[in-house]
């Protein structure tokens, strides 16, 4: 067992090529799964006994919310690895995660507000779950702002990585906010120890959407990572060869 494969992951030219080759393998399944999941969720799944067709926003809302946490965790781990082992590619991964995660968080907040108005009777309340998810959006935006504010890439990497690692405390707070405190937001239906509280006809499209969103994140991350590596290595000679110039 050698560690060469692991060490190669620290090499920008290798990761650039790997990302280019892997992108379609994630992107196409993501597109198919999301289309299939939308069809299953919007057409095949039965309406809810209380919410009617209004519950179908869950097929975008819940996967977006899950991804907002998953992307942040990925970003914090990449930032931590970059801090400890001084791996530039790891910092590049963390930097590429932030705008994707911010978008998922924004989507979760907006779809939740649109659902909340008819169902709860309000677009927004300072409820623990809603507030902690809003803080997550600010963490993403703060991370991006901090990076943009520091000219030197290496210093931007280290400063923003500390922010990403510190902010990871918010991830369990968001997940458990609905069980630790009284909140308006309902408890988890799927991400819980007991059986999911949805019947299979509603649950399967949701899981398909979740898998699709996860692969979509992977594909978007690889595309952004390539751009990030190109920007960082713009002075290197391998870039000219890779781009065939």
């Amino acid at each position, binding site marked *: 067992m050698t560690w060469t494969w692991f060490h190669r992951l620290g090499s920008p030219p290798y990761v650039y090529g790997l990302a280019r080759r892997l992108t379609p393998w994630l992107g196409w399944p993501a597109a198919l799964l999301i289309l299939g999941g939308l069809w299953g969720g919007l057409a095949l799944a*039965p*309406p*809810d*006994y*209380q*919410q*009617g*067709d*209004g*519950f179908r926003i*869950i097929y975008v809302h819940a996967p977006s919310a899950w991804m907002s946490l998953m992307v942040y965790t990925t970003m914090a781990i990449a930032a*931590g690895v970059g*801090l*400890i*082992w*001084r791996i530039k590619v790891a910092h590049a991964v963390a930097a590429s995660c932030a705008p994707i995660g911010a978008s998922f968080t924004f989507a979760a907040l907006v779809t939740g507000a649109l659902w909340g108005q*008819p*169902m*709860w*009777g*309000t677009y927004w*309340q*300072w*409820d*623990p779950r809603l507030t902690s998810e809003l803080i997550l959006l600010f963490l993403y935006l703060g991370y991006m702002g901090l990076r943009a504010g520091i000219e030197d890439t290496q210093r931007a990497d280290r400063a923003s990585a*500390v922010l990403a*690692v*510190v902010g*990871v*405390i918010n991830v369990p*707070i968001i997940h458990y906010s609905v069980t*630790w*405190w*009284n*909140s*308006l937001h*309902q*408890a*988890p*239906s799927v991400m819980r120890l007991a059986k999911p*509280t*949805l*019947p299979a*006809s*509603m649950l399967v499209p949701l899981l398909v959407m979740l898998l699709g969103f996860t692969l979509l994140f992977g594909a978007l991350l690889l595309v952004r990572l390539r751009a990030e590596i190109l920007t960082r290595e713009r002075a290197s000679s391998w870039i000219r060869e890779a781009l065939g110039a």
Partner: protein
Amino acid sequence: MTPRRRRLILVLGIVAGVSLAGALALNAFKRNVTFFFDPTAVSRGEVAAGRAFRLGGMVTQGSLKRAPGSLEVRFVVTDFSHDVPVSYTGVLPDLFREGAGVVAHGSMRGDGTFVADEVLAKHDEKYMPPEVARSLKRRHGESRTGAAPGAATPAPTPPPSTGS
């Protein structure tokens, strides 16, 4: 100790320190973080008199009364150990049901009635198709032994509102 190991310990130390600080802070702010108080907390006097707060719990079955000719509604919020009567004038949200969760914002009046200025429906985490809800309700109706607290039975509801 190599610099790498020192950085590893530093990063793990940051995570541990922030977690500890977060846990302590959230524990200290527990009462402020909580979104609503349940009737038991209200009866224990955890809420300062005259202060506006949110009351949360279940709407007691059969307690909803509408005043004729106005938007005023009265219902009882319960956590199955204490009850609080609520009075509210306004439009109730779609998911407001007897036997379902509710969060009301307002304050206590001298006579023990909670006067709400905002009523929100609290949805539970259960989803099911209407046919399943109907058959569950039918089965529940046959073997009725009194509504168990927090039982996983759907609220008796009209058929799903379409076009919502």
